């Protein structure tokens, strides 16, 4: 934390346009820490912790009642215009404004100071210079490192709250996941009905298949029998056909005698001779 404080004040010491500042900015831009420094570099507003509960007296804590129950009253809001130049109350300026205008209090301090010095109510000694130096140093520190210091203490104050926010976010995310899971399981349980319907469909299909198969068996058997009859008939006709051919052949062969054979041979030779002479 102190290192961050030093770094912030250092950045303020370096003027905006100097090359050193550019180098620092580039180094930040290309480092992983850039995001972090950007986040913490915001101008601090005191009591910036989110969302204060104004109506705290009427708020009912969830899960009430228990020991040491909240909520606590909210912190008073920090008013940066409460004092001018860190220490001079704004009320004094407002008191003198109607009488002497904006410069009234400065004029008052100057005249009173002149009076104190000239009448030697206030004697200037070496200690006065120490005082002036001290004031100058305080002003410089406030000007340069004031916001960082305020940041530092603000962060120290809100660190616990931020950690608790993380705890809460974790719990809420876990519960949300649980809700989602329960809803998912409920939705998935509905699948049982679909599966049972599918089983009914399967059963109906199996019965139908069995019935169709039985029908197919009967039809196939009948077809086979009829096909057998057709085949038997075919064989019968083939046998009868062959038998008839044989019988005719036998009858024909019986009619052929050796004389008739010779006569046919002679007529054939005669025919050949006539064909040769041509």
């Amino acid at each position: 934390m102190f290192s961050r404080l030093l770094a912030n004040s250092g950045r303020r010491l370096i003027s905006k346009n100097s090359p050193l500042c550019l180098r620092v900015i580039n180094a930040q831009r290309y480092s992983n820490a850039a995001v972090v420094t950007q986040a913490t570099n915001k101008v601090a507003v005191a009591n910036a912790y989110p969302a204060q509960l104004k109506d705290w007296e009427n708020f009912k804590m969830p899960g009430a009642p228990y020991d040491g129950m909240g909520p606590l009253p909210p912190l008073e809001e920090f008013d940066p215009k409460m004092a001018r130049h860190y220490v001079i109350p704004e009320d004094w300026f407002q008191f003198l404004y109607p009488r002497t205008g904006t410069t009234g209090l400065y004029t008052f301090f100057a005249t009173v100071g002149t009076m104190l010095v000239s009448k030697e109510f206030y004697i200037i000694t070496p200690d006065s210079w120490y005082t002036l130096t001290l004031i100058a140093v305080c002003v410089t520190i406030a000007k340069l490192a004031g916001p960082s210091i305020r940041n530092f203490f603000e962060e120290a104050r809100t660190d616990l709250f931020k950690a608790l926010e993380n705890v809460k976010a974790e719990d809420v995310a876990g519960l949300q996941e649980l809700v989602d899971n329960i809803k998912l399981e409920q939705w998935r349980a509905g699948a049982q009905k679909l599966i049972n319907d599918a089983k009914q469909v399967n059963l109906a299909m199996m019965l139908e298949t069995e019935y169709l198969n039985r029908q197919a068996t009967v039809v196939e058997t009948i077809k086979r029998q009829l096909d057998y009859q057709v085949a038997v008939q075919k064989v019968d006709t083939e046998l009868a056909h062959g038998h008839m051919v044989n019988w005719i052949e036998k009858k024909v062969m019986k009619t052929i005698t050796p004389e008739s054979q010779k006569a046919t041979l002679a007529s054939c030779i005669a025919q050949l001779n006539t064909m040769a002479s041509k």
Partner: protein
Amino acid sequence: MASRQALIKPIEWSKILERVGPEMKSKVNTFKSKSDTILNNYVKANETKLAIDWDHYSKAIANKAMVQEFQQKFKALQIPKPIDNKSEELKKKAIEDEQAVQKFVKESDENLAEVVENLERLNSLPPFEQMTMDDNYEHFPRLRPDFKKYPFWPHRENIDDLIVNKYR
């Protein structure tokens, strides 16, 4: 037969499979492969031709009387339908499952209500700036220091378990 055919409709597997949890996935997949074989058998049985070409046989066979007899007997034949004795069982199981699902949904609804209540409680807390340490311990019991086991500060096993260090 008509009523049974009305029961047969395509099963919506995409709907079933998307609603099935990872622990039931393998069971449902085996069931799906079994039903697929059943469907294939059914389709195959549906495709076979059951008609007999009587004209062809009456022409081809000389013995017309026999064909006539065959035809008449085939027409008169009542093929017995397979007896459905599982349907009642399935219906009973479906009703039981339905009741079990309703019971599960009811129970998980109670759980859900509890969880939602807790969520609402956490979401309605005031900002932590205005909560006391007792509030924190009441609503986030896991942050409670253990005074019995660890009598000395930080009342935890080590200092890194402090809220600020652990949940930074």
